């Protein structure tokens, strides 16, 4: 096994799958010769040629729109959207076309397009290189939403997505693109969608996080330990489909829940998680659920550290549910 960061793990997944299945193609802005602005597609064009790995004109609606056409014809396109903030010109193609194509054709056609995109803050990216728009897509039936937090999951989940038959938004936590490192097999393997991972068992509080926020949660969980609070941390990994069973097990054990995400609070995915837990297992709850999230403002530049959830804010939330 090699030690990889998330970029390398993504690259390795693409290498493996392009090797394995000639229907897999990679397209997007600057993904070809340059290998992507984060270099996740580096070396793919040299290995698989310009027909299967290519730069497109600068138009996200065109990237996704043509990827849909390719998928209808039987290819497995893996387009890259350079930053999640730039996915919105393709929003109509994703929400009205990609996500609904199978349903509206009565199952005749499928369009298994796997959209990779780096998301999230903490890199001094301001409004437009920081957003976390997962909730918009989770609210869109027909597309899956997957967010790895580490290299192993990044590779295993991406391969599952590419081998699957559904459209997926695969969101990569760019803040920890290079910082998150770990052992990853060089050969292909899969991590199934729809399974959360309990990365830390605990009996007092259930902490729900994903992507780059998982790292903040993990720090907070360690700090909580010093305070004598035993945190169970779930890395949700696949937000749609969601692993409701794992959440249920943990909530029934701890009776206390803290949810963490970067996106603005109102109508973020945290709202769904909070609602779901309280609706189904309210009688197990020892304290109100607390959400630690971005605020209801656009993503700032200078004050991004104040804006973002961090171990201190998460710890404060843990304290709140522990001392209710």
């Amino acid at each position: 096994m090699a030690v990889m960061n998330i970029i390398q793990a993504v690259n390795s997944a693409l290498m493996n799958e392009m090797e394995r299945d000639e229907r897999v193609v990679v397209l997007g802005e600057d993904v070809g010769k340059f290998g992507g602005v984060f270099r996740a597609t580096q070396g793919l064009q040299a290995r698989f040629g310009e027909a299967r790995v290519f730069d497109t004109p600068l138009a996200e609606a065109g990237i996704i729109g043509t990827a849909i056409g390719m998928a209808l014809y039987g290819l497995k396109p893996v387009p890259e959207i350079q930053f999640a903030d730039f996915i919105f010109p393709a929003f109509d193609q994703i929400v009205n076309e990609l996500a609904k194509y199978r349903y509206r054709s009565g199952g005749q056609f499928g369009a298994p397009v796997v959209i990779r995109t780096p998301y999230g803050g903490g890199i001094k990216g301001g409004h437009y290189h920081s957003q976390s728009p997962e909730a918009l897509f989770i609210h869109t039936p027909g597309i899956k939403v997957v967010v790895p937090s580490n290299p192993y999951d990044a590779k295993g989940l991406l391969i599952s997505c590419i081998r699957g038959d559904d459209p997926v938004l695969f969101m990569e936590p760019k803040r920890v693109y290079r910082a998150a490192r770990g052992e990853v097999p060089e050969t292909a393997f899969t991590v199934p969608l729809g399974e959360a991972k309990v990365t830390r068992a605990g009996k007092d509080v259930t902490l729900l996080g994903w992507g780059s926020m998982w790292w903040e949660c993990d720090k907070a969980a360690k700090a909580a330990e010093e305070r004598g609070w035993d945190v169970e941390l779930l890395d949700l990994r696949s937000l749609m489909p969601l692993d409701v069973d794992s959440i249920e097990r943990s909530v029934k054990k701890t009776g206390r829940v803290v949810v963490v995400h970067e996106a603005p609070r109102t109508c973020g995915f945290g709202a769904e998680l909070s609602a779901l837990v309280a609706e189904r297992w309210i009688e197990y709850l020892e304290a109100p659920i607390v959400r630690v999230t971005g605020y209801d403002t656009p993503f700032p530049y200078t004050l991004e550290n104040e804006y973002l959830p961090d171990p201190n804010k998460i710890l404060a939330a843990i304290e709140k549910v522990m001392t209710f």
Partner: protein
Amino acid sequence: MAIEPFQILDEEGRARPDLAPDLPGEDHRRLFEVLLCTRRLDERMLLLQRQGRIGFYLGCTGEEAVAVASAYALRPSDWIFPCYREHGAVLWRGMPLGLFVAQCYGSRDDITKGRQMPIHYAWREANVASVSSPVATQIPHATGMAMAARLRGSEDVALVFFGEGSSSGGEFHVGVNFAGVFKAPVVFVCRNNGWAISTPASRQSAAESYAVRAVAYGIQGELVDGNDILAMVVKVREAAARGRRGEGPTLIEARTYRMGAHSSSDDPKAYRDPQEPERMKARDPLVRYRKYLAARGLWTEAWEAEIEERFAREVSEAIARTEKAGPPPLESLFEDVYAEPTPELVRQRQELAAQLGARRKAAAA
């Protein structure tokens, strides 16, 4: 770029001998038959709509030649990405009337499972993509499919229809531009019928034509009389051949005219001079083609009557069958969101089934 649309048949149905394609008599007769049936289908379905037997309809009267000629000029393996006014293209490809009618009813025998409004068909078997209401979205799909065909070493070509109004949207630009850059074998058919609901074509663009936009993409452009079925056949054939030769896409502006309302929900009296469709009758593609065929001995009144009669009977049978079919099963509501339903979808399906079950029980009690 020609300023006058390319034309072969004049309004009297006389063909330019130097330009007329040499089609077999059988093809001519089949083309006429599909034109005619498309027209009759419109009339019948609109009637059903007015009777409240289907919820909505959108016709193509006066524009049939664009769709029928385009479908004819392709190979069956080529893909068609319809807008929503190309019933003639699916009839050409042989869509069983039962499928068409069942889709309009959204009944249990609808292969799209009653998921969309009438005329939003999808027919994978015949390489006909799924109709979507949001306009222009299908344009980049066609480009992508054509790019994929090249990549796979296939000779398949994509043909995509859209209205002149739809060409104002961003997806027109990105779809055609990608095709230009990647030399994708796509035939872009801009069906300029003069109107986008109540908005005249003059409000969509200040350019002299829609065909001229080809220049902006470095591709071939053609301005064609879309009510001249022979002109359309010639130009779509050329375009498809160009694509197959690896010479890239073609943008065809097919000048036609929307004779009727935009749809069954629309009333053009509020915005359009009723004289305008009257004047346009002289250009009716069906009438012109009939004259042409008659002059060549390929048409008789009896033959037309026979087609009409058979077709009317088939439509009636299809309607009768579908009206007996009933709605799709409840479970179908939750199918096809994903290839496999998620656990939550299963849960929601059970929740609804239980609720309806309880309600039925309560009603019975």
